[in-house]
């Protein structure tokens, strides 16, 4: 049995301007110790997917309207409030994008790490403080016993994100959700944080859901990759599948807009033309068709299903199963002149 199974998850926000279909029918599975990357542009529904798993969507504007989130055989969406709290931070923990604002400025770092331990593990104040220091040591904060008494403003950005990781892993969760954990950090610090996450994963065996728009991060870390566009999944498969044999034109576009050192000639980047769609007014048919260079009439009228094209590799494009349409890694590497 998979550790986490998400079926047809739909989350919507009811705003004055209309219903925002932030997540529109997302399904995936996650096994123990596995790393899944959720990739997509801003506003593709990545973060809302993650928040939905934690039941952290801001009510009453936001609601999970349909679907199942089955964690070890139990549907998270059917839990009552106290059961949800018992799950949060204990079985599923989360780290956020901006470590500058994600820690409470008026409490000591050690105290904030210890809070989850006191709630979930029944520790008293001293035990939690002791364990918080150990966690800080584990994530590589020097002089941890002393630094645990510091306030967040006395930490650098990278240290704060380390503290966030320590906080998230304190209760030894089954799943760690990382919502763009390196976006707000310097490049050198980014690499350190990713390395730390991998190291901690090996140590604790936690599964990771990594939300990112950085395909470099995905290539380094992910077992599976899910590509999202306009609140829907457009491609889902192993990292090898998605990188070496991408099936969806949007994924091609993402890969082409990446600077690569292995293509020396014609080193220009090919950004995807146009803007991501508004989630209030998603284009008819395939959400990507207004920006897709290969779009035909059917793309405007019918929403493509997420079909399994090869074992374990699914794509939501009307033409993914057409061999003439598919582009292989060979074509992609020999140049971008296919267009």
């Amino acid at each position, binding site marked *: 049995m998979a550790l986490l199974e998400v079926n047809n998850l739909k989350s919507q926000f009811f705003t004055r301007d209309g219903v925002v279909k932030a997540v529109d029918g997302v399904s995936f599975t996650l096994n123990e110790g596995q790393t899944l990357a959720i990739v997509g542009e801003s506003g593709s529904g990545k973060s809302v997917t993650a928040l939905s798993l934690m039941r952290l969507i801001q009510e009453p504007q936001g609601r999970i309207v349909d679907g199942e989130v089955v964690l070890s055989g139990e549907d998270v969406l059917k839990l009552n409030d106290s059961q949800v709290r018992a799950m949060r*931070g204990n079985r599923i923990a*989360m780290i956020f994008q901006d470590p500058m604002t994600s820690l409470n400025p*008026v409490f000591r770092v050690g105290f904030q790490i210890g809070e989850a331990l006191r709630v979930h593990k029944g520790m008293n104040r001293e035990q939690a403080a002791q364990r918080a220091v150990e966690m800080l040591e584990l994530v590589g904060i020097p002089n941890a016993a002393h630094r645990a008494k510091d306030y967040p403003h006395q930490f650098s950005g990278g240290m704060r994100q380390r503290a966030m990781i320590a906080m998230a892993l304190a209760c030894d969760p089954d799943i760690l959700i990382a919502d763009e954990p390196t976006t707000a950090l310097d490049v050198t610090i980014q690499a350190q944080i990713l390395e730390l996450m991998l190291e901690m994963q090996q140590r604790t065996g936690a599964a990771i859901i990594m939300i990112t728009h950085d395909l470099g991060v995905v290539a380094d870390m992910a077992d599976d990759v899910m590509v999202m566009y306009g609140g829907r999944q457009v491609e889902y498969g192993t990292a090898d599948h998605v990188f070496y044999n991408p099936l969806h034109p949007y994924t091609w576009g993402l890969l082409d807009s990446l600077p690569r050192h292995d293509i020396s000639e014609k080193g220009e980047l090919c950004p995807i033309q146009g803007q991501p769609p508004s989630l209030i007014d998603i284009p008819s048919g395939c959400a990507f068709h207004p920006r897709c260079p290969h779009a035909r009439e059917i793309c405007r009228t019918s929403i493509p299903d997420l079909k399994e094209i090869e074992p374990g590799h699914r794509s939501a494009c009307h033409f993914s199963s057409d061999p003439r349409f598919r582009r292989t890694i060979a074509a992609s590497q020999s140049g971008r002149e296919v267009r």
Partner: protein
Amino acid sequence: MLKYVVRRVLQMIPVFLGVTLLLFMLRIPGFLPGDPIQLIVGERELTPALRKQIEEKNRLNDPLPEQYVWYVSNIVQGDLGDSYQKGRPVADILTDKFPNSFRLAFAAIIVEIVIGILAGIISAVKQYSFWDVLVTLSTSILVSVPVFWLGLLLQMFFGIQVREWTGGAFSLPITGMGDPPDLAHIILPAITLASVSTAYVARIMRSQMLEAMSQDYIRTAKAKGLTERVVVFRHALKNALIPVVTFIGIDLGFLMGGAILTESVFQWPGVGREIYLAVLQRDWPVVMGGVIVIVLIVMLVNLIVDISYAILDPRIRYGGAAE
């Protein structure tokens, strides 16, 4: 922390000197209309000998800088001069009246803290509910009502109307303030004095709570699995309280300095009313002494506020040396 306190205390000295300089100008002959010597003499006949005696006693013929040094050194030694009208030392008059002002300020600040903070929290936590609308509406009205009018209204309602309705069985006293006044007499002045500030506290509390609740660290706290109560009352409240404590502290300084309008409307025997009467009678030493003591109190309260602020908000500890 100690260094911070010492520095803040040293900073008070120039403020104190500035205030004394301004007040000193009140006693320069010719600066204000009317002859101060005539005011001191009152109904008595002003003989040249008497004039000379008064001038010498008050050093009115010395050069101004010398007069100023004499004046400040007297203040530092606790001598605020004598009242023109009563002939008593101003320090004694103020010592008599300040406890009453403190009593009123203390009662008002309790109203302000309890009602203001509670109303603000309820209003923010139950945003757009009936209670939120009630708080928002009533605070809008309160901040725009003149204090003396509210005082008169309360006197009419609780002192007169309620007594008529209950056939004399129940009413709040509005006359016959003793010195010191008793507990029943303090209710209406305290509510009146606290009204505007309570409304401000409720509004600041509400907006600060709402702002805090939308911060990323609240999402982090929820993601840890903390209960809604802990998230609101620990993580949001401590952040939201910082500006509220500042406001209440500064307000406490002003309230202690005597509330001229409220004390006058209710005939409350405090410093505010004493200063008001002294202004009417051009009894300058009382006005000057009263103002100086009020300034000292405000400065002292501000110092305490700043220290408690540093305790609440670790980011400003050590006078901003961190970060």
